């Protein structure tokens, strides 16, 4: 690796500031009492408390999975606080965005997120989740005109209890896995989306998750329901301050995609990755899954640049005939980051189709793994999958790994898997420099070129953002 490339990978995390607000954070530790406290803070109905407790009891009997290609000290679950809210959001909860503490909104503005409806990026409605609570959601009225519900899930519990009760846990059951069970027990805020039959959501929906308080974990829960023939595009973004400690983020996202509906779910994940020595950073242990009914389509696009450790497999259950699942992923790791990410495509219905395009980029001493399952059930006649996994290595001390799992129980199903590994070569760097191009620009161009197939799946505004994010994450990675 040339000197320039090394210089370039020293990453600078631009979202690492702390917002100075007074928070009310419950004492550290996890017990049934803590779960009761969280539930009571949210005035939850009895059924939801019971639902949480059931999850907690299941979790206590489970063990942390260790099959992922990552190593980290196990979190001490008794040393974390499971609920933290800015005080201003607790007493006299603001009724509109105008009443929200400006300091909170400033946090999002600093991150470049449009918090006022009159701003230029007016095609995007935003839900802002700060530690354990949603601080505001834009364009709710406009969306309501179209019949679209977009609100914090804690509100949906009260306002749309039938929908929540029916679908919560319907895609990711409480005891699905260790971290999903933990989330089910202690989840705080997240977004709730309902698109009625035949409605095309008039704007992009997005949620920005921000961890601010120290020694807390964030356990958000997102539930998106696209009713028959509806269409929605949703984006989530995530950032956190730079801290020496490792903070836990264990989310659950459930997508319900009814007949002929389409959900496009994009993620730009930029959690704090830890410093150059591997100190601090977020543990991102997330369960994301969608169920697609007849002719429905679920498309996951993710750009992952953050987290110290990532463990995440956005998946599709292709239950209905002719349903479609897609997974487009760019996962970049640098310094001491570790990522074990991929997808599961479970083909149940006839003529179901799935596409997986995964681009892993590893720099410095990071480890980057793709892990994916393609499962063709006996009933999945005529089902097809195409998988392409490409890895790009920058330097000679990092690792790229591919773990594909294929299970086919139907002889008419077709599964294709392609994989490549390449390096940003000295020849490529020299060609660029010989044509007058800076080494930094050269690396970012080469990496962006490598990710092109995934970036074109992102909503346009975010494709630009994602490209810039890669550039920042790779600063100092060249040499």
């Amino acid at each position: 690796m040339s000197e320039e490339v090394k210089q370039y990978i020293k990453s600078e995390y631009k979202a690492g500031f702390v917002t100075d607000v007074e928070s009310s954070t419950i004492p550290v530790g996890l017990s049934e009492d803590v779960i009761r406290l969280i539930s009571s803070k949210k005035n939850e109905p009895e059924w939801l408390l019971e639902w949480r407790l059931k999850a907690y009891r299941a979790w206590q009997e489970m063990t942390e999975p260790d099959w992922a290609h990552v190593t980290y000290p196990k979190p001490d679950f008794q040393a974390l606080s499971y609920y933290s809210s800015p005080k201003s959001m607790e007493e006299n909860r603001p009724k509109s965005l105008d009443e929200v503490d400006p300091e909170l909104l400033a946090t999002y503005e600093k991150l470049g997120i449009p918090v006022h409806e009159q701003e230029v990026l007016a095609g995007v409605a935003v839900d802002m989740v700060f530690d354990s609570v949603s601080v505001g959601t834009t364009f709710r009225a406009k969306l309501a005109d179209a019949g679209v519900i977009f609100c914090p899930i804690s509100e949906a519990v009260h306002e749309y209890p039938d929908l929540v009760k029916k679908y919560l846990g319907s895609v990711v059951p409480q005891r699905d896995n260790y971290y999903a069970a933990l989330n089910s027990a202690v989840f705080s805020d997240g977004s709730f989306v309902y698109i009625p039959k035949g409605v095309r959501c008039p704007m992009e929906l997005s949620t920005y998750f921000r961890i601010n308080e120290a020694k807390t974990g964030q356990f958000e829960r997102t539930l998106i329901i696209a009713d028959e023939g509806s269409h929605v595009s949703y984006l989530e973004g995530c950032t956190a301050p730079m801290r020496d400690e490792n903070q836990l983020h264990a989310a659950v996202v459930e997508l319900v995609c009814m007949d002929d509906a389409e959900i496009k779910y994009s993620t730009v994940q930029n959690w704090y990755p830890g410093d150059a020595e591997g100190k601090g950073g977020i543990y991102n242990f997330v369960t994301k899954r969608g169920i697609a009914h007849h002719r429905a389509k679920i498309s996951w696009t993710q750009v992952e640049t953050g987290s110290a450790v990532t463990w995440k497999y956005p998946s599709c259950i292709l239950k209905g005939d002719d349903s479609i699942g897609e997974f487009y992923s760019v996962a970049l790791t640098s310094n001491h980051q570790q990522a074990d990410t991929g997808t599961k495509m479970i083909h149940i219905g006839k003529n179901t189709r799935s596409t997986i395009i995964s681009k892993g980029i590893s720099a410095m001493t990071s480890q980057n793994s793709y892990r994916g399952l393609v499962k063709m059930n006996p009933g999945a006649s005529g089902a097809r999958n195409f998988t392409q996994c490409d890895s790009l290595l920058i330097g000679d001390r990092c690792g790229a790994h591919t773990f594909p799992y294929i299970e086919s129980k139907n002889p008419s199903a077709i599964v294709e898997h392609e994989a490549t590994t390449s390096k940003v070569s000295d020849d490529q760097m020299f060609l660029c420099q010989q044509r007058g191009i800076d080494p930094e620009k050269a690396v970012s161009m080469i990496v962006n070129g490598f990710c092109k197939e995934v970036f074109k799946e992102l909503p346009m505004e975010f494709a630009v953002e994602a490209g810039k994010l890669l550039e920042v994450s790779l600063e100092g990675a060249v040499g």
Partner: protein
Amino acid sequence: MLTIKNLKAKVEDKDILKGLNIDVKPGEVHAIMGPNGAGKSTLGYVLAGRDGYEVTDGSAELHGENLLDMDAEERARKGLFLAFQYPVEIPGVSNMEFLKASVDAVREARGLEPYSSVEFIKLAREKSKAVNLPADFLKRGVNEGFSGGEKKRNELMQMMLLEPSLCILDETDSGLDIDALQVVAEGVNALRSPDRSFIVVTHYQRLLDYIVPDYVHVLADGKIVKSGGKELALELEKEGYRWIEGETV
């Protein structure tokens, strides 16, 4: 234009250039010939500033400025252009994007405004036509899936766009059939001008039928062992490199 004095360089602790002298004046075309392993490609890489090529002695000046102190990209911006023997592919990076980044960087160093996208697309299309590359090659990845001839024509197009003052052609004829060779040679000849110089590195005389040099130098074991006019190339072709090696022993 380019003055090289007593240039010595090594690669991975092996001495390759062992005291090389050349003086190239504006508008001149110098051919450097020599047997395999003489250091011909190394000379191009050393002048262009590639990592791993260490200069141990001597000097190289372009327009009176010390080349050896500059980073590779700086040398390119000062007008040095190296056409590669085997141009590398950069998948996913469109040729157009690459060319614009390159031309913008060089123009900026010369105090010129970057082209607008519209202007640049027009210019790039014009040049691709001039080198007989269909316009859709501009949208494809840099050299991605190009044939040998297409890669060389792509290099030629870059040369036209960057308007360098010193062009080093590193075995441009390798891997080209005679038709492709003619196209490339015609392109190079069209670029010859009183203020642009060329160093044409080649193993065979064939290329010099098309790009006629003012001077021919024979490089053997890291030094220029013989210099002369264009007729020297013909003599070499007839007698082989052994003739030179025999003389110098």
